[in-house]
């Protein structure tokens, strides 16, 4: 992997998350019935930051959860190495909630398809919205994000790497060339 460019630094990520938090509040007209659920792993970190940010702006706590989509993947039966099954933690009722699903990178849309199926096994939310830090294009399914931190046009030969303090020790978004 050859690093090509740093797209977002720590401040850039913070600004993007703050703006998305404002947009979420605006679209949902406040925080009543609002919750955020992150997709493991990095989506969870971003979801928690969004919740923190929303709390600062509106002064109210919103419920947060973590979703592991491994068991819902459409490529489970293919020989693609063995994914680790991690914990799903949604300790609240999602029925009639406005759920904001959060992931780091939106690419083919297949992860989001799996996440939608997984979420619906937990109940019938009033709405499911999608927030991503980066949208890099190349969708293979009819899925779009409601909130985007940054649109980054990429080629399929490139990879987008999101590093977050919580899991990687630093905050940055990089584009790398696959060798």
């Amino acid at each position, binding site marked *: 992997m050859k690093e090509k460019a740093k797209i977002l630094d720590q401040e850039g990520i913070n600004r993007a998350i703050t703006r998305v938090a404002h947009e979420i509040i605006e679209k949902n007209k406040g925080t009543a019935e609002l919750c955020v659920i992150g997709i493991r792993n990095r989506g969870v970190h971003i979801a928690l930051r969004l919740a923190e940010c929303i709390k600062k702006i509106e002064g109210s706590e919103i419920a947060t959860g973590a979703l*592991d989509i*491994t*068991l*819902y993947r459409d490529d*489970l*039966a*293919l*020989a*693609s*190495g*063995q*994914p*680790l*099954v*991690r*914990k*799903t*933690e949604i300790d609240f009722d999602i029925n009639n909630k406005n759920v904001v699903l959060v992931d780091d990178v939106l690419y083919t849309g297949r992860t989001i398809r799996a996440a939608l*199926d*997984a979420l619906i*096994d*937990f*109940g019938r939310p009033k709405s499911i919205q999608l927030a991503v830090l980066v949208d890099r294009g190349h969708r293979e399914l009819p899925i779009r994000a409601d909130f985007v931190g940054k649109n980054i046009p990429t080629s399929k030969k490139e990879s987008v790497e999101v590093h977050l303090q919580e899991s990687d020790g630093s905050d940055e978004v990089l584009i790398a060339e696959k060798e």
Partner: protein
Amino acid sequence: MSWTKKDLLGLEYLTQEEIELILDTTESFKEVSTREIKKVPALRGKTAVNLFYEPSTRTRVSFEVAAKRLSADVINIATETSSVRKGETLIDTGKNIQALKADIIIMRHNCSGAANMLARTLEISVVNAGDGWHEHPTQALLDIFTLREKLGKIKGLNIAIVGDIAHSRVARSNIWGLTKLGANVTVCAPEILLPVGIEKTGVKVTSNIDEALENADAVNVLRMQFERDEGAAFPEQLDYYQRFGITEERLAKAKKNIIVMHPGPINRGVEMSSEVADGSNSVILEQVTNGIAVRMAVLFLVSQAKDAKQ
């Protein structure tokens, strides 16, 4: 660390890391059974066959529930009513099930090594649900998972296993698993039910129940299989209870929070008193709940490994 084995035959054949991977995966699967919709699509389109040559309700049902919560299709074959009665060999039965394009055989057999033999012969996955006196890996895994959940770790724990050690596959699998994870294991049984050479597996051996319970963090009480009583070897039930039965008086001398486990079904008043079985130290029903998550993890892992090989 990823799982590469198409079969689960015994804990003897697993590394510490592989056992820990199963336990960690189990933790993730436990949540599925707490949902309103207790089902995930992970094994959709796969077929699991329960092939039981010995009577079993709880293990078979637990595997069936586990497979169904993963969306697999489950077929139960009771050998008393199948062509096994007409003299079909195990290998032929296995090959026929493979020819039906099943993906996993879950087998209980009265001969030690039966699962190993079938696994060598077939390309599909074989999960050992108990073979003779050899191993019962998923029972030991659920025992170890329950211990880890209750006490946070396995390394350094003092675990007593009490009962018919000689004829118990549950004991053997537990000894393999617990010693690999660094627990100190003591086995306790009447002299006649202690197999020769058991101390070579790295366990302490005693026939004094109070000595076994002293300092134990947990006691795993095995079922006395009186239905297999062939006469001389087995002690009388009452005599056994008096010498080895787990009672409140005996627990009073042990660690206050000692965990009491039993693989079931319990002979109340033989292996333990009713007060102990239903008491606050007992985790017997939690073991049953954890058994489903352990079996989900195992079915998922072997199925993934088999797919990766193709």
